């Protein structure tokens, strides 16, 4: 069964037609990179997968999105339940003004989990999975704001992992970070692939080629090309894709 299956997706911000007939399939435990110039609809598409666009007034979608075979736009779907299956890491690190521990425990607590031991175990395990443990193990009760940007972003990843999603969406997770933090995040994505299906938006071509199995190239709301990453970067079918990845525009 496909983990993500988007069929004939069209999306509108009021009158603005932001996504045009997108069809995209993702298999389990794959990393898919979304690339394309700014404003082409990458974030919009990503936010469709956990229904984050529901928060914006006046938006409209047609077509369907299946996550593990389930139509997430079907009536009666509980959005909060969906978002526990499909986690999201944002472009700018956005920890809560709480302690490091409480940031990671948040998703568990809102899930109704109150077993202290379980929460503690899961928090530690998630921070370890996010490759942050050695840096924060002595200050779990300190404010998350005391961490560096790169650490905050890995904390946000840990926070997402704590709710054991099936899919992790990342919207330019390293764009606000320094090269060393970026490298750490990339390594992390490589690790996470074993357990999660990941979709990552990136502006960095090297990053896309390093971390992803498949790459989708978006342009002006259309998905121009979607193929194995190697093919996209060595032998793209479309001229537009080639121009973009070789840096001739975008």
């Amino acid at each position, binding site marked *: 069964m496909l983990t993500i299956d988007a069929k004939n997706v069209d999306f509108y911000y009021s009158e603005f037609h932001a996504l045009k007939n997108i069809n995209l399939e993702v298999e389990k435990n794959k990393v898919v990179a979304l690339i394309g110039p700014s404003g082409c609809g990458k974030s919009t598409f990503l936010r469709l997968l*956990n229904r*984050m666009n529901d*928060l914006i*007034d006046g938006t409209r979608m047609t077509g369907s999105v299946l996550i593990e075979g389930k139509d997430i736009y079907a009536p009666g779907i509980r959005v*909060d*339940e969906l*978002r*526990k299956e499909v*986690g*999201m890491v*944002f472009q*700018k690190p*956005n*920890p*809560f*003004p709480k302690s490091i521990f409480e940031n990671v425990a*948040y*998703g568990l*607590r*809102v*899930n109704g989990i109150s077993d202290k031991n379980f929460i503690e175990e899961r928090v530690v395990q998630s921070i370890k999975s996010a490759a942050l443990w050695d840096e924060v193990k002595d200050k779990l009760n300190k404010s998350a704001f005391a961490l560096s940007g790169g650490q905050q972003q890995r904390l*946000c990843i840990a*926070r*997402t992992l704590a*709710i054991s999603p099936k899919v992790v969406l990342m919207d330019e997770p390293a764009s606000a970070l320094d090269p060393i933090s970026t490298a750490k995040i990339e390594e992390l994505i490589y690790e996470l692939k074993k357990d999660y299906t990941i979709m990552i938006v990136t502006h960095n071509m090297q990053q896309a080629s390093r971390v992803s199995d498949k790459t989708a190239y978006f342009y002006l709301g259309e998905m121009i090309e979607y193929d194995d990453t190697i093919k996209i970067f060595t032998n793209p079918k479309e001229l537009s894709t080639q121009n973009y990845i070789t840096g001739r525009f975008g």
Partner: protein
Amino acid sequence: MQVKRFFEKLIEGFLLISGSITSITILLIVIFLFKEASGLFTTPVVEEGYVLAFNKENPIKHLNAYQIKQIFDSEISNWNEVGGKDMPIEVVRLSDLTNYYTEEELGAEFEHIPAKASELTAKTPGIVLFLPKQYVAKKFDGILLDHETIRPGDFFGGKEWYPTSTPSAQFGLLPLILGTFWVSLGAILLALPFGLAVAVYLAEIASMRVRNVLKPLIELLAGIPSVVYGFFGLVVIVPFLQQTFGLPVGETALAGSIILAIMALPTIITVAEDSMRTVPRAMKEASLALGATHWQTIYKVIVPYAKSGIMSAAVLGIGRAIGETMAVLMVTGNAAVIPHTLLEPVRTIPATIAAELGEAPVGSGHYQALFALGAILFLITMIISISVELISKKKYAK
């Protein structure tokens, strides 16, 4: 060019002058307030133009305002209750002299009163004589209590406010400050939960359309003159309370609280809502993306994040309640007694000033006591503004 520079200089000078004048005026008002207020403590406890006289053998040297009142109200009848010997108190007013002396003895023109008053004081060990100064003999045979002034304890610890009682006016702050406190506390307890609920609704739940209608409407509430609120309270709330609780009168602390709550709502709602709207989108999205419901996000992220703004809203609401005069004056019944429940009439500090300043003779103890109330009110509101300042500073330091 020259002319333009000249005008700029002129305007600059003008702004400087108006700024300084404003500051100086405010400073002068405050100085005036406190100067008049401090006069209270140089006012004699005994009514202007009168003295109290005791027998020479009486060891009593001081009586405070409240003790004098109790003695003359026969609530105290033995000197040992005010620290003297075990001896009954014999209260004598000027008019009581006829009980001791015939009219002939006092003289057709009362010319013998000074001598007789002195004589009576000398021969009555337990006497306290309340006498106009003009009848005090040159060689008065007794002790005169004429230098005693109102002490801070009489004011700050005084339980009674009878500014016109004789022989000793009672300027006790407690009933008024407690009245203010209870009315304001009631108001804030009513207004805060409701105001926050509306703020949450407007900031998070209402659609753009509903919000665009409600917000200006609520802000409009803040502009209604307080007499109108008072009138509404008098006509609607007071009779309602009287019937619901079966009270002898509906003008109670609770009526004041309800009116003040309504008046404080726009402030609380506006400030709290504004602070909730400043919660970054990223915070809300982070919470929702972790599977939190909208309500969980509201009480776990939005409200804590907007905490300092919400606290400012509460404190500003209290400030509005404490300083309000007119509406409270109209619905609280204005009884200057220490309230035990919210269903009793009370009187607040601002209402007292407004109601009594017109009838207090300039420079009298009563007049100065009202200024002292003003000074207290000024201090309270200053503390409130400073705490708002501190709370909102904390927000930005975070």
